[in-house]
């Protein structure tokens, strides 16, 4: 049995202190210990992107991030994006454009898509695809997801003009 380490971090804006095994990855910690099951595991190899969350506002793979490495940091999961205005626009657009079917990849898609919207406001469809290429979906064929992100980018552009 490995020795636990006590960590303190912020999860969706709330301070959390917990004893974790050094080998526990962040996704397991969030899902099993914090009961935040919106973060999904599609591979645990760092490839599919289903587990994408924000650490200090930056997207990261929670399946290849150890929970102990997040001591002192702020973690945001899909559940923490309920009130986020960009995420709200994306949720609306994903639904309108049928950007989800089974919904398993969706939390990771939203976190990555939000990052694209904020970081690449002028992205064309091709750039959206390149930026999103770290997330896999087995259901949608990606068309609805690209259209959803396109829709949000266009709306923000119009609003800014």
């Amino acid at each position: 049995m490995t020795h636990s380490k006590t960590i303190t971090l912020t999860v969706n804006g709330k301070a959390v202190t917990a004893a974790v095994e050094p080998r526990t990855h962040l996704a397991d910690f969030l899902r099993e210990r914090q009961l935040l099951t919106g973060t999904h595991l599609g591979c645990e190899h760092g490839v599919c992107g289903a587990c994408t969350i924000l650490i200090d506002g930056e997207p990261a793979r929670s399946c290849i991030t150890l929970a102990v490495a997040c001591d002192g940091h702020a973690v945001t999961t899909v559940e923490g994006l309920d009130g986020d205005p960009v995420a709200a626009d994306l949720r609306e657009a994903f639904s309108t454009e049928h950007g989800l079917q089974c919904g398993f990849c969706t939390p990771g898609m939203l976190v990555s898509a939000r990052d694209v919207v904020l970081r690449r406001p002028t992205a064309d469809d091709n750039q959206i695809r390149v930026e999103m290429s770290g997330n896999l979906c087995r259901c949608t064929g990606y068309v609805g997801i690209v259209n959803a992100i396109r829709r949000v980018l266009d709306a923000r552009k119009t609003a800014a003009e």
Partner: protein
Amino acid sequence: MAHASGVGARVRRKEDERLLRGRGRFVGDIALPGMKELAFVRSPVAHARIRGVDIPEEHRAAVFIWADLAMDGVKPIRAVSGLPGFKASEQPALADGKVRFVGEPVAVCIAATRAEAEDIAAQVFVDVEELPVNADMLEAVKPGAPRVHEHWSDNVFLETNVGGAIAEIAATAPVKVTRTIRTARQCMVPLEGKGVVAHWDRHVEQLVLTTATQMPHIVRAGLSECLGLDQGLIRVVAPDVGGGFGWKGLLQPEEVVAGWLARHLDHPVRWTEDRREHLVAAANCREHHYEITAYADERGRLLGLEADAWVDAGAYSVYPFSACLEAAQVGSILPGPYDFRHYRCRTFSVCTNKPPIVPYRGVARTGVCFAMEQMIDAVAEAVGREPWEVRLENLVPPDKMPFDNVTKKHFDSGDYPESVRRAVAAIELDGWRARQTRGEPDGRLIGVGVATYCEQSAHGTAVYYGWGIPMVPGHEQAQARITPDGGLELRVGVQSHGQSMETTFAQVAHEVLGIELARIKLVHGDTALTPYSTGTWGSRSMVMAGGAVATACRTLAERVLRIGAHLLQGRPEDARLVDGCVRVGQASIPIRDIAHTWYRAPQLLPPDVDRGGLETTCGYKPKSDHGTFSYATHAVAVAVDPELGSVEILDYVVVEDAGTMVNPMVVDGQIYGGVAQGIGTALYERMPYDDEGQPLASTFMDYLIPGFTEVPHVRILHMMTPSPYTEFGVKGIGEGGAIAPPAALCNAINDALRPLGARVTDSPMTPERIIAAIHDASTSAAASTAEATR
């Protein structure tokens, strides 16, 4: 009249809200008090006798093997086909004395967390005596090959022979082309793996198995057979399920083990398939091999087709579909959408030391279309015509519909040639041909490919009873109940795992009853709450369960009209349902008030009111039991780099006919997703095995599924020929997108390679294979030049 949110409306999905907020509930999200986690010890070798399973003393109580289950009377999984000559296999949920593929479960370990269960699994040692391995199906059928099941006479689950005399055509046909064609073994890779939580519910005295499945009722039937428990003592629940594609359409050994453990230990257990387990133990579909010859006249009109086909069915026969469904299906559907007279096909379901085969989206059609459409292009090349013209020459024309083809498939409706004409126009073939002639500045080669198929979907009793497998679909049931406050509850035994049924079945009900979508609730995925169904497979749910929902709603509409007419003091025959209200002349009463009357003011009801009330369960079968036939033509333009072997998709068009579309947005989504999987099959996906039957891919770094940058923005054009046999004229469409891409892409790549004299015939068409084909062509060209100059 179509309602604004009824059949045909592009409405947003009811299931989106929870999924977009991370509030879905998948198996892995379920934690029960005291729940323990399972990890399986799996076979490290493909074929061996088990000498023993060494369990460290301190973990004895935490590890179970087959003997433990057998002592309790647990039976192996048996999925026998009634087709003559089928050889039955027995698959114990944990290996019994022998292992037959890498990844086969041998023991199960239980602990408080998955990590701890895996720690124990790592200390369990399976002592094996290795046996010779059947890693390739063509080797496995040779005399003297080692037997996977030693009491069998050979390694063939089933041989089938379809059709007959073709010798005369073979001798006289002006054109004859022969090909050897192969498809790779694949994994289905739903993004959510399989998972199961099992517990014994002491209050209702039931085993409750919550599992990521497409067919809860069939899993219950299978569990009952294996565990020796009455079906009434088992409840199977499918919560949110993260994609299936066929992989969740079977009874899994792990489900049997979890169910037994929950009862045996009397506390909850959970198993979650991880990606490595999936890739290693569940590479279970699509591996076909064809030796195929087409005969034609000088215009490319098909005179006959002859083929031998082998399907690698793996080590065991899977419940409920059996090991022979896929190969036997090859025999019956290889002729595709074409009209020709002479046909002979022999198929073999071959037993090998690989994971057991499970039908993947499109089942045999993806392989069949890949073979048949290569043959059409080969004939076109032989007669010097455009491949699409040769398709037009051979497709069943609309004036012959409905049409019974050479294998007695009953094509219901549609205009197959028109789908080709539209696809060729939409891809703008002439433009690509001009560009081909000009040549590309970067040296890449342009190619255009076309593929057409028709897909039997929503197969009924007539199709399935002949297989004699553990499951034959009959009348599909749906329950409809108007609630006391005027809403509607629907209960269906099929299961939605991305297909959007919570929305589309509500649209069907809305079309009939006019109750608003927001007030219609679909209950599915629970044997305790829904009528029996064989589940979601074979593009059947909208046709079958959608038809049942419509039937149940019509029955309720009838009753509502009678009560409404009485309350409005009119005659039932004058009453109509309009926008959720019963109208008689100018008078009108909403369904809500009728519901109130039935439940809370029954004194106002007519004396002869239907005693069934506002609740009914109805069964449904389409007018023809032979399935609907949707069809499509896919056209694709590619650029092939002859130096790198890479393929870029420049444009992709789908012209399809799904009959009446209940929700066009959802239909499009199914096609986009299917095409993406088809592109994976065509260009990327393969589980390679070495000679010892070891799978050589175990992560997403070496098993490649297509991502954002590999899948183009597919363009979809609809033709809508309603099926004459179904409610609203719908046809099954869920699988179709995945069928044609490998064929269309193969034809496009070969069109590009033609100037080099090179050709690919096997999927996936990887850069290595394309380079090898170019290399082979240039070597043989050089050899024949040397020959000529000698």
